[in-house]
């Protein structure tokens, strides 16, 4: 048996497939590439690459430090192609920063108040929880891509026409 090489792709090197229509409109498939989206966006712009009713998956370029975020529900992040550190603070008063009935992440000005929960350092393919009730911040020594499971909200960018196959 031969040796296999797993093809991961990265913000610096990705190939795109695509939709070959037989009898359909390629736009219906909302086809994009998360690495291209991240590469062509500003750092930590959380651009939706998938959406299903209120739910979204966001792709973002991780580069240097992000601001702080929180949400009224769990979110999850995957480091797709490089090292990303995530710092967590247990919010002293989460409801003051985000409506508990709301959905999607919100940006917090400055470091929020609360206990230091610790941090994780993710390598390629690692997934971390962004737990409800906490705030989190990303930092990346080198440019890479993060994928976030969340809900459409204040910080979510919609650039479908720019990135999706027509």
């Amino acid at each position: 048996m031969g040796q296999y090489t797993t093809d991961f792709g990265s913000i610096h090197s990705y190939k795109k497939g695509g939709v070959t229509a037989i009898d359909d409109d390629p736009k219906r498939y909302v086809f994009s590439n998360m690495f291209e989206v991240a590469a062509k966006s500003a750092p930590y712009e959380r651009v939706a690459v998938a959406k299903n009713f209120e739910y979204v998956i966001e792709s973002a370029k991780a580069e240097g430090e992000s601001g702080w975020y929180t949400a009224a529900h769990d979110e999850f992040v995957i480091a797709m192609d490089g090292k990303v550190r995530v710092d967590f603070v247990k919010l002293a008063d989460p409801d003051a920063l985000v409506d508990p009935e709301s959905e999607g992440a919100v940006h917090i000005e400055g470091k929020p108040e609360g206990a230091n929960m610790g941090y994780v350092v993710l390598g390629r393919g690692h997934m971390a929880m962004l737990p409800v009730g906490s705030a989190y911040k990303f930092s990346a020594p080198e440019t890479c891509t993060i994928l976030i499971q969340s809900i459409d909200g204040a910080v979510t960018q919609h650039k479908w026409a720019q990135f999706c196959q027509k």
Partner: protein
Amino acid sequence: MAMKESAFAGTDEEISNPRGLPITGNFAINPADNITGYKSFQAGSFKFHRDEYFCYVTTPTGVHTMPADAFLRALMRDVAWGFFYGTVNFDQVFGTTNYYGEVDMFMGATNEAYTAAGRDFVERFKADKLMDVFKQMVSDWTNEGYDPFAAPMETGVPWGIKNGDNDEAVSRERVTARRMVGLPGDTPVRTDANGYPVNRMFADVVQDQPEVHAEPGFEHEVSAYNLFAYLSRSDVTWNPSVCSVVKDSLFCPTSEEYILPVEHGNDRCEWFIQLTDEITWNVKDGATGRPRAIINMKAGDCCCMPADIRHQGFSAKRSMLLVWENGSPKIPELIRQGLAPDVAVEF
């Protein structure tokens, strides 16, 4: 993707029944055939039997023949997925449509030629009753050495008369994280020690674990795991398992090799995020079966399956695919009533 068990019990809400069919009973499991050694099965007017090469589905409108490997691989998914979301087309003729508590089983209902000629046949069953028959069927019809979950290069062949079983393989419990894999008390990560060696096609996938520095008291919240390593150790193909949950948003990554054993007919939009390598999807119309598109996905590609199609994937090298589902039970009926669109995003 696995439905939650509660779906079988029925929900408080009314179960959709677009065809207005009554519930069919009349289940039977018949003794093993003297020659082939296989049991035969009956659910309503549907009769099932197999021989050395084929599985047969008989209804009052005719007999449909499928190669045993194709039938068993599809049956295995239908069982493991709990009838999944929407329609599981075993092939272009036979399949099931899930209404979450009740199931329509059909011959030709998603095939233009059958429906146009009025030759389609459908009956409706309580999901748990039909599941019971399906589970006994996949158990009886699977021989020793054959694993209908495995890729062709990793298993034997299903042909021949009854010869032992592989109940260990066909009764695998599907994996459903409640919040995230690796959290204390949630679905554990996979290791050599708990019986999940790295697949030969993922030998180059780094098995490192994230650095987790949780302050005391936050060990249940500050948590991470190596998803790619987890997927590299999957012992099954085309079997999404829930790894992280945001309300009804379910990340269901899976490892894929060879061909998706069913044509999955969506009852809502479903997203594919290609994590590694490459998959090609053949997309056909959900109602008629006419080819609509061919989609090639490489690592990093994101693509939506609209609610009105069916799809079947091909993966030459084992690959990691993130299947993303919106598990809300309300969506299919919204789409059927035209209150929600077939497509996820209009731009």
